[in-house]
């Protein structure tokens, strides 16, 4: 009780500048709590309201997919600090300054990985996603850990946090699903130019093939004939290309809809977000109440 009495007296008797600073800080805190409460609530509801699609039949648009994370073929994705093989990583480096930790570096992987369910697979492009990883490592170091990226932080008090999504983890992704057909990238003019440039590399063969009057050079008519054949070849290649199945990719929507990734099934993920929203809402109510209380204390006479 004594604390509250002292707090009330301090607020009532503080100078205007001190009151404004304290009130302003509470206002900012309240704003952040409101923003976070609404943001998590919207994310949770979006996740709950979009049914889980199957990878083989997911429509073009905003979808939710569930499956196991896998690496794509090619060089593995390795976390930069601890060198762990994972499908996604993120890390922060903090430096102790007096009694506080100050963030000095933060990086997040934007490498593609695969989500595979019982029906098919879809590439995940994690750029711009809100990722909620479960696996993490946190460690402190006073000296260099022998990690090349850490060279500039030698000798200080540093805290390293690294987060991962691991291969074979069950993940839930909600975002914009698109099929990129090979034919979408096709450019007739560019392909024709490339083919002709390729033929020109070997002049002897070009002349053998198209020099119909055997004068050792290609005149305009012969060159036109060569171009016509090249065009036919490009058209045939385009036809072949069109038959190649497209690549499914899930990524960030261009609008403000959430793009979320978590190593949980959809309902557990929504629950997690609900808890976060509830936590932020409690902070919002608490800070809001304190803010209302100090306003009432200060301007009580005008209530």
């Amino acid at each position, binding site marked *: 009780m004594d604390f509250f009495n002292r707090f009330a007296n301090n607020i009532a008797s503080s100078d205007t500048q001190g009151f404004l600073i304290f009130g302003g800080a509470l206002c900012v805190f309240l704003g952040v709590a*409101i923003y976070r409460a*609404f943001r998590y*609530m*919207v994310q949770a*509801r*979006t996740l*709950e*309201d*979009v*049914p*889980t*699609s*199957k990878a*083989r*039949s997911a*429509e073009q*648009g905003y979808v939710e997919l569930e499956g196991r994370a896998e690496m794509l073929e090619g060089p593995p994705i390795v976390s930069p600090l601890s060198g762990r093989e994972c499908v996604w990583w993120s890390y922060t480096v903090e430096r102790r300054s007096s009694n506080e930790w100050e963030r000095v570096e933060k990086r997040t992987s934007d490498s593609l990985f695969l989500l595979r369910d019982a*029906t098919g697979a879809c590439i995940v492009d994690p750029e711009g996603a809100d990722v909620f990883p479960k696996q993490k490592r946190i460690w402190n170091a006073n000296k260099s850990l022998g990690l090349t990226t850490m060279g500039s932080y030698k000798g200080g008090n540093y805290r390293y946090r690294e987060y991962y999504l691991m291969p074979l983890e069950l993940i839930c992704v909600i975002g914009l699903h698109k099929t990129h057909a090979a034919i979408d990238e096709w450019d007739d003019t560019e392909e024709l130019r490339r083919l002709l440039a390729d033929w020109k590399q070997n002049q002897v063969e070009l002349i053998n093939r198209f020099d119909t009057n055997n004068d050792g050079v290609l005149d305009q008519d012969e060159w036109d004939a060569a171009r016509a054949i090249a065009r036919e070849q490009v058209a045939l290649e385009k036809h072949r290309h069109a038959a190649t199945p497209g690549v499914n990719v899930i990524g960030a929507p261009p609008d403000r809809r959430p793009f979320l990734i978590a190593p949980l099934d959809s309902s557990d993920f929504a629950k997690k977000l609900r808890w976060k929203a509830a936590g932020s809402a409690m902070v919002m109510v608490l800070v*809001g109440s304190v803010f*209302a209380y100090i*306003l*009432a204390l200060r*301007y*009580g006479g*005008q*209530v």
Partner: protein
Amino acid sequence: MVSFLILLAVLGLIFAYGAVLYNHLVALRENVKKNWANIDVLLKQRHDELPKLVDTCKEYMGYEQDTLRQVMEARTRVSQALQNGDVGEVGKAETQLRMGLGGLFAVAEDYPELKASESFQHLVKRITSLEESIADRRELYNASVNLSNIRVDQFPDLLIARFFNFIKSELLEFSEEEKTDVNVKSLFN
């Protein structure tokens, strides 16, 4: 003055919360429509394939006119139900069509020349693939209907739903015996 400001802030938060609920109910309603449209597209594609299948079968199955007619009648019923936007009727007509198709493929077993026909095999493959996609899309449609219907009945969404007249959607159900998807391929193994 302070009380008024606090009241205003609380009302603002309640309004913002109501707006979030409303927007999500709209999104759910649109999801249901979109998922229905996705089924509609596939049913129309299959609608276009069935006459080709029936024509191919006619060449070989001279004595099975009833079976072929049943398929075509069921196809017309599905098409009419789709035009009327009657989900319940689509479900019933689909059941009938699937039974008709099942019958047709079973009878086709007795016609080895038909089974060996390239165009018949191509159509079976195409229809099988469409059936798989329809099954997936139906599952997704029903899931989005369930989500929407639960929200419309759930507090506090129901306050907004009643006020703005959000209504429940109908599930696309096939009869019990037809709930397992028609597996056309298995009939030929």
